[in-house]
């Protein structure tokens, strides 16, 4: 509720403000960049499973974000832009996986050690149950897995996740509930 009031007030304030100058936009983008670099990087990392590709995706996400920033800011009506940023990263990650699937297997790829999509270096040093959670995440559908990454890695609210995934708040709540339930069942079967 307070978020709605906050967003409403912000939207009203924005409506009264004339179009931002280039310098104002740059400052606003700088703020966005500094605030959400870790979010975009974390999201990318959990989607692609390695630092190298996560860095590329993060770079691309911020390049795209900059190109469309003015419009996104105008159309957000004062709402937070994190869901929009994560949606850009989401689309880039989807393209990344699609390109990877299309690419013929090269000899070099064959000798590379397999990289777990969420198989982080740090998990290897963690507890077995954490590793089990990470591994079972792979068995979820893409949208359920993504919703859990947004919720737990980025700490996004249902509303933010809904905006990032282009769903309603209700559908997102159900999606997360089902994702957790399925994960519980998968872990219980082990």
């Amino acid at each position, binding site marked *: 509720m307070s978020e709605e009031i906050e967003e409403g007030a912000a939207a009203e304030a924005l409506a009264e403000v004339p179009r931002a100058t280039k310098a104002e936009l740059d400052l606003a983008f700088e703020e966005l960049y500094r605030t959400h670099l870790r979010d975009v990087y974390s999201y990318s990392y959990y989607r692609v499973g390695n630092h190298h590709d996560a860095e590329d995706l993060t770079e691309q996400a911020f390049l795209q974000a900059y190109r469309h920033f003015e419009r996104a800011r105008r159309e957000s009506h004062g709402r937070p832009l994190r869901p929009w940023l994560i949606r850009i990263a989401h689309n880039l990650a989807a393209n990344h996986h699609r390109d990877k699937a299309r690419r013929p297997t090269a000899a070099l790829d064959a000798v590379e050690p397999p990289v777990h999509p969420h198989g*982080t270096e740090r998990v290897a040093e963690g507890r077995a149950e954490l590793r089990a959670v990470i591994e079972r995440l792979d068995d979820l559908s893409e949208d359920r897995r993504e919703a*859990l990454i947004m919720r737990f890695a980025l700490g996004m609210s249902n509303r933010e996740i809904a905006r990032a995934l282009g769903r309603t708040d209700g559908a997102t709540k159900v999606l997360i509930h089902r994702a957790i339930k399925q994960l*519980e069942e998968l872990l219980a079967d082990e």
Partner: protein
Amino acid sequence: MSEGVGLNLERLLTDALRPVDPPADLVGRVETRLSSIAEQAAAELSSWADELSEGELEALRDPRNWVRPVAAVAVGGAAAGALVVVGMRRRGRPGSLRERAERLLRELGPPQG
């Protein structure tokens, strides 16, 4: 499934999916990449402008021929702006892409119907 299990799983998920700090050199890499894009666009615009003959300059007064320079300015402008954003602060430097583009458009004069 008890609620306790659900809460425990949420705790495990919070532990398993901890936020990941980006490498320290990521910002530098972004700067390099943006810089490269800006320089490429600037070079494209500059060489293209240098090669123009009188006839081509005349043709440029027709807005239908503006696609190439406008695209170069747009790409370079976005990248140059992003450079500012990530801290390079190159705006105001003599001969920046935006200044060159603006100067070129001034030299070309207003379109003639």
